[in-house]
């Protein structure tokens, strides 16, 4: 606690602390020593390509995986020593749907609530509220199998909240949702944040991260390659303006050689060449003057997607 206070201005209370956290599956090292700290009441995001180690990290938080090394404190408790107490205080939306197919929609919440030893009255009341919260009230008596993928996802979110957790871990909460459902979930997550819950989420959608997360980390190959607020990450890693050139293979090579000299950075993502610069006009002028054939040019502001591409060398689109 005292070291926290010495940091002065930034001394916000942290509710989750990972130090040199590691996870290996046999010989394979999925998480290779990560450090991060989540403050109470913030929304903290994990980005990273497939296999980066996001789910492995989430699983260590919610007790489905045991750390192979390092320390992890959740809600102030060591996860290996206080397994049950940690699980009592968190809510979990796993990446893979694991609703109880033998039970109806509402029963899923009732039975799940019993695992937390909540009184029946409390469970019933919360189940009603939560079904309403995720807009599934009219499906309360349906079989889980009859729900669409997006409805199942929303039911998982409701289930994660049945114990009124102080920390909610959401592993890709909106994957597979249509845009409307996604916006509904975002709105709900913002409400939870407003209530003071701490949210920890992984996502492959940059817009989601930018919209929801106060701070985030980008993981790759089991390590954290960068962390900060969305704005900080953009400032730190990419120039503010981006030109996207779309063209056939041959001319992209020539284009690369041309813009490389002036742009701050150049990335290629499939058939698109991305040039990062602080003076897009000048660069565009130069490309026009060169006479290289370009099918399509787009100008835009740099975003998290660009940071991601920069740091992981991979495009999210692929």
């Amino acid at each position, binding site marked *: 606690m005292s070291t926290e206070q010495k940091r002065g201005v930034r001394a916000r209370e942290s509710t989750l602390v990972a130090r040199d956290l590691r996870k290996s*599956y046999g010989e394979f090292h999925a998480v290779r020593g990560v450090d991060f700290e989540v403050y109470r009441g913030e929304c903290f995001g994990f980005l990273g390509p497939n296999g980066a180690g996001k789910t492995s990290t989430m*699983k260590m938080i919610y*007790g*489905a995986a*045991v750390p192979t090394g390092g320390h992890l404190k959740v809600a102030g408790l060591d996860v290996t020593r206080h397994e*049950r107490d940690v699980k009592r205080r968190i809510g979990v939306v*796993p990446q893979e749907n*694991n609703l109880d197919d033998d039970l109806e929609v509402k029963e899923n919440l009732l039975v799940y609530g019993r695992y937390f030893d909540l009184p029946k009255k409390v469970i019933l009341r919360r189940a009603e509220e939560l079904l309403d919260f995720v807009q599934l009230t009219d499906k309360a008596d349906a079989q889980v199998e009859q729900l669409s993928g997006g409805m199942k996802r929303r039911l998982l979110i409701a289930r994660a909240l049945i114990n009124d957790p102080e920390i909610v871990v959401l592993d890709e909460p909106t994957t597979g949702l249509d845009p409307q459902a996604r916006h509904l979930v975002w709105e709900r997550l913002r409400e939870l944040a407003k209530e003071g819950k701490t949210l920890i989420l992984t996502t492959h959608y940059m817009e989601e991260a930018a919209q929801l997360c106060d701070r985030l980390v980008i993981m790759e190959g089991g390590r954290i390659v960068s962390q900060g607020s969305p704005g900080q990450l953009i400032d730190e890693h990419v120039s503010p303006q981006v030109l996207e050139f779309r063209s056939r293979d041959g001319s992209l090579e020539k284009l690369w050689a041309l813009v490389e000299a002036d742009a701050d950075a150049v990335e290629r993502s499939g058939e698109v060449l991305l040039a990062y610069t602080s003076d897009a006009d000048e660069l565009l002028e130069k490309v026009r003057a060169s006479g290289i054939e370009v099918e399509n040019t787009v100008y835009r502001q740099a975003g998290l997607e660009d940071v991601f591409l920069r740091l992981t060398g991979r495009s999210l689109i692929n």
Partner: protein
Amino acid sequence: MNAPLRLPSPRGTFRVWQRNMTIFRKYWKTIMFPNFVEPLLYLAALGLGLGAFIQEGGINGGTYVQYIAPGLLASNAMFAASFESTFNTFVKLKIDRIYDAIVTTPVNAEDVVAGEYLWAGTRAALYGTGFLGVLAVLGFTFSPEAPLISSPWALLIPPMLLLIGVMFSVMGTLFTSLIQRIDLYAYYFTLVVTPLFLFSGIFFPVENFPAPVPQIAWFTPLYHAVNVCRELATGPSPIVLVDIAWILAFTLILALLPIRFMRRRLIS
């Protein structure tokens, strides 16, 4: 990899049991029917059919139906608990991923396993109690001079069936915790359950076999379960305590192994 020994909590165990009970209560009529009919088929075919060829007084001075009926109570419990801890548990573990969801709550992996033990025992006891009732009624209706259940000690059969069910659940769960594919249960049923069913003194006394058959039988679980049920159905001798002690010891010793293996499968 030397994980500390984890004992199940009664609270978590109960929650898992309660989840199964919630589902069972919705479907119990359809679920229980086959389990009910099967032993009656054995009774009819073997007890009455085959029994007609066996001289009266052939086994322990009673009719053949009287001989096999209590043994079928024990094997019925074995089958109920074995199906529960094999196919049903496998589906919950690997296909429906029910346990993955449970272990993220304050209910731990060891509670899940213990809850399933208790549930399999409960199912075995429920089936067995219904079957016991049928046997008692049938016996008194059709042959009051040679009833199938002839001792008030038979009231202790249901709790014993619970214990017997837990024992077979431990065995079935052990197998489940070790396999990756559902077809492998053919091995378990052909090599474990069926031989137990045939050679545990349900249909003929194994004591009359040459050594080492009776000695081997003594080391197998269903043999003791059959003894207990038969003794309680007809009025027990103190020897039954040995059988009960055997069942308790076997169950307790083996129970921790599946807990360990299942934990490893649920928590990476």
